[in-house]
């Protein structure tokens, strides 16, 4: 076990920052926690979808019946159940029923490539697919038993089944894109979900919370959106459409009285740009997932006021959120927004060259605590590299190496700088993509930007910027001229592509591949305007 070097001063600072322990039901499965809510809040609305509202008692009853059906279909404790269902009440019933079977839910999207899906099912040893659509998945995946949600023979039993999973066992598996190109299955324990949604410091989660489930199940923000409500006696509102329309979002937020909302950075920026009034009724807005835009945060702060927005950060491997920062007037004094302090029952360290970083020193962000995944499925090598035991100040600490790096402010707030992967070398120069983005965003005519690395014609790496403008007079050339005044020449993107909008992936993050194929791949210089 490697020892992390430290000074007494820095160790003291980390102990202060990491003083986050709070009681949480560390020995209970999500099945037990949900059933406790069903008992305590039987008549309260658990799930709301369009005009339908289902109470905790009724939701529990339906899940109990479905669990019997799933068990009859062969789903056993520990079985991985692939789940691909439209966002409707049945989806929530299914998740709870799977938990009641002691089984593991594995969200997938049938539109993913065949090979990717088969790899996922193989890695997770997934034998069952629970679906509610007409697609013929049985012929695509003959090794899996496809269970149609609507056709399953539900059991008559309405009582809670016995506990078949402990807090240590796996509750769900999320697949993330791996750097090798092969997706990595991140296994998340029941205990980690309890840690995310109990005694929460980043948002008020209790029996009065009304959370909107906007994220697809394949994106781990859904863990927060669904279980944050259902394990606290609150209400989970299911967004009624597959695609998000701001007018509809505003109506849902208002009519359903949503109190806490998570938005990806890109979607948050789009709302600030196009219709900030969409969020007028929401008391607590969490945003994160990508590097934030300073100008959007400043405008949002002006519009929504201090204390309503929370900047959150966290890799899937640490169960959705790891740090948070309530956004206030002083938040932008460092130029960009901090990602703040660890959430409850979470610890963080910044390490560079085997030493704990002092404030101002940049290092890799390491996360520890019960939110950590036990590891990647079928990938012991990756698990070994990313989940590491260190001796930190005489204490053995299992950490997740995020691959992100940042630095601490004197007050202990964490600043995000970028991915280790985003530190690129072009023509011998080390370039920080986030720094380039920040410079672009500071131009008043820029609405949104995305900076990445592409290949030039000769196969060399080159810096690319994709931007949306809110100033018709602005051109790619004038933006590059502006950047030359603010950045060294090697950091000025060689190509600036002007886009009508930045395409998003299903998880709300900017779709790099779509941008590259639509613009850079076409090699059409006219698009640079």
């Amino acid at each position, binding site marked *: 076990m490697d020892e992390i070097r430290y000074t007494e001063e820095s160790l003291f600072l980390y102990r202060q920052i990491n003083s986050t322990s*709070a*009681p949480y039901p560390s020995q209970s499965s999500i099945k037990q926690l949900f059933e406790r809510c069903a008992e*305590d809040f039987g008549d309260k609305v658990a799930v709301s979808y369009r005009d339908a509202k289902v109470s905790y008692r009724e939701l529990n009853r339906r899940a109990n019946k479905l669990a019997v059906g799933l068990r009859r279909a062969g789903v056993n404790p520990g079985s991985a159940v692939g789940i691909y269902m439209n966002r409707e009440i049945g989806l929530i019933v299914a998740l709870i029923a799977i938990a009641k079977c002691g089984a593991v839910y594995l969200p997938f999207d049938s539109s993913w490539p065949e090979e990717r899906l088969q790899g996922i099912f193989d890695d997770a040893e997934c034998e069952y697919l629970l679906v509610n659509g007409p697609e013929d998945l049985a012929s695509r995946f003959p090794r899996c038993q496809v269970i149609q949600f609507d056709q399953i023979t539900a059991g008559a039993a309405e009582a809670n089944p016995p506990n078949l999973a402990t807090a240590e066992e796996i509750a769900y598996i999320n697949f993330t894109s791996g750097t090798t190109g092969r997706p990595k299955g991140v296994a998340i324990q029941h205990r980690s979900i309890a840690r995310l949604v109990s*005694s*929460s*410091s*980043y*948002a*008020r989660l*209790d029996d*009065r919370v009304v959370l909107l489930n906007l994220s697809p199940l394949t994106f781990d923000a859904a863990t927060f959106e669904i279980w944050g409500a259902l394990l606290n006696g609150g209400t989970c509102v299911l967004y009624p459409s597959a695609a998000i329309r701001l007018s509809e979002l505003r109506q849902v937020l208002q009519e359903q009285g949503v*109190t806490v909302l998570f938005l990806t950075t890109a979607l948050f920026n789009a709302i600030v740009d196009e219709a900030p009034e969409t969020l007028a009724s929401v*008391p*607590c807005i969490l945003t994160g997932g990508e590097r934030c835009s300073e100008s959007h945060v400043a405008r949002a702060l002006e519009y929504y006021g*201090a*204390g*309503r*927005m*929370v900047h959150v950060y966290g890799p899937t491997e640490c169960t959705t959120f790891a740090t*948070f*920062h*309530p956004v*206030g*007037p*002083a938040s932008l004094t460092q130029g960009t927004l901090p990602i*703040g*302090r660890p959430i*409850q029952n979470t610890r963080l360290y910044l390490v560079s060259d085997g030493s704990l970083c002092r404030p101002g020193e940049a290092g890799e962000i390491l996360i520890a605590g019960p939110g950590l995944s036990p590891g990647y499925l079928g990938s012991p090598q990756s698990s070994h590299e990313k989940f590491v035991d260190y001796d930190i100040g005489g204490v053995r600490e299992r950490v997740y190496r995020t691959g992100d790096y940042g630095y601490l402010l004197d007050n202990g*707030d964490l600043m995000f700088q970028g991915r280790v992967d985003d530190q690129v070398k072009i023509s011998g120069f080390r370039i920080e993509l986030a720094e380039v983005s920040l410079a672009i965003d500071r131009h008043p005519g820029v609405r949104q930007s995305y900076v990445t690395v592409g290949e030039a014609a000769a196969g060399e790496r080159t810096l690319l910027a994709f931007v949306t403008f809110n100033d018709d007079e602005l051109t790619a050339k004038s933006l590059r001229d502006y950047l030359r005044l603010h950045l060294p020449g090697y950091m000025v993107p060689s190509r600036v592509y002007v886009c009508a909008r930045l395409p998003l992936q299903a998880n709300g993050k900017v779709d790099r591949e779509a941008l590259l194929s639509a613009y850079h791949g076409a090699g059409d210089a006219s698009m640079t305007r």
Partner: protein
Amino acid sequence: MSDIGFEPPAVAADLAADDNEFREYVRHALGKVVLPSAETWEGHGRIETEGWRGLGELGLLALGHTGDEFMRSAIFLEELGRTGYAGVRAAIAVHAYMAPSYLEMFGTAEQKAEYLPDVRLGRRVWALAITEPDAGSDLRHLKTRADDLGPAGYKVNGQKYYVANGSQADYVVTLVKTRPAPVGRALTGASILLIDAGSPGVSRCSQPMMGWRSADLCSLRFIDVLVPANRLLGRLDRALVQIVQALDFERLVAGLLAVGGISYCLELLHAFIREHQVMDSPLDANQALRHQVAELDCDFQLVRQYAYHAARLQSRGRLDSRTASILKLKATELAVTAAQKCVQYHGARGYLKGSAPARLYCDAMGSTIAGGASELMREMIYQAW
């Protein structure tokens, strides 16, 4: 206003402990809203939303803190104590008296107009956060800090312990340090902030006690919590002066509640010893036992009279620390003695988990600690001599 059959009587010019009409109204109202739900609240560890709303609709959260109106509060507090649930009474008293007293005493007209209506109707629950892990009876080691952000308000970091209504509070009246102070003089440079408990950065953890089950005691942690500038209650850096005044009021309220609690305990004890047969005779056939109960009753009558004396002082704006401390000390300690006798004379059935005497005993032990421990009360009484 009321759907319990009759309206609260109009305030009489000279209200006193024998305002029987109002007392009758309060008993009916509590019998309708509190008693049917108290066991459920004890089980859930807090008063349910419907309970707050019900109390609010019946006007029981809107009784005055000062003047003649306070005499009605005194009756209400005694009757609330007489329900026999110290957790329930503590939760309600913190919401309606102890926490908003800072608003009533030191708030601006705008602040009162903004917040008081919801307090009085039970639409927003209030809590009071003073104690910290290292600062209880001795507040010199107060650590919760509010950094001044200028016109933007304050940023609060720290932790508070034993906050009643902690899990459900909408607003928390919070003692914070706003200016560095010399070591050991933390209240120099402290202020009172009204913190929206729904703000990001506020987290709460239940701290279940052996008694006071419905009081919903929690620890609250504040991490970078943003508080608007207009949520300062009273003057910046002057909490020391405010706290002294508010704590006197808090101890008066605690004393009145304890008086009601003793009353309930003695009624329970009396009924039991008259009915329960030992060797073919009721327990109260035993002279030694009768005399012990009579002693308790004597002490109770004296404390009760003193409680209304203190209430009258409050209604005339003349409550002092010594009076408030004497009342709190004697009432809460008598409650412990009475509860102990109640358990003892009930025998094993009084020691049974979930029995009323056992609850009274567990509850009574909390009252000599909360709001200033008995030892501190004695010290203050001696100092004020």
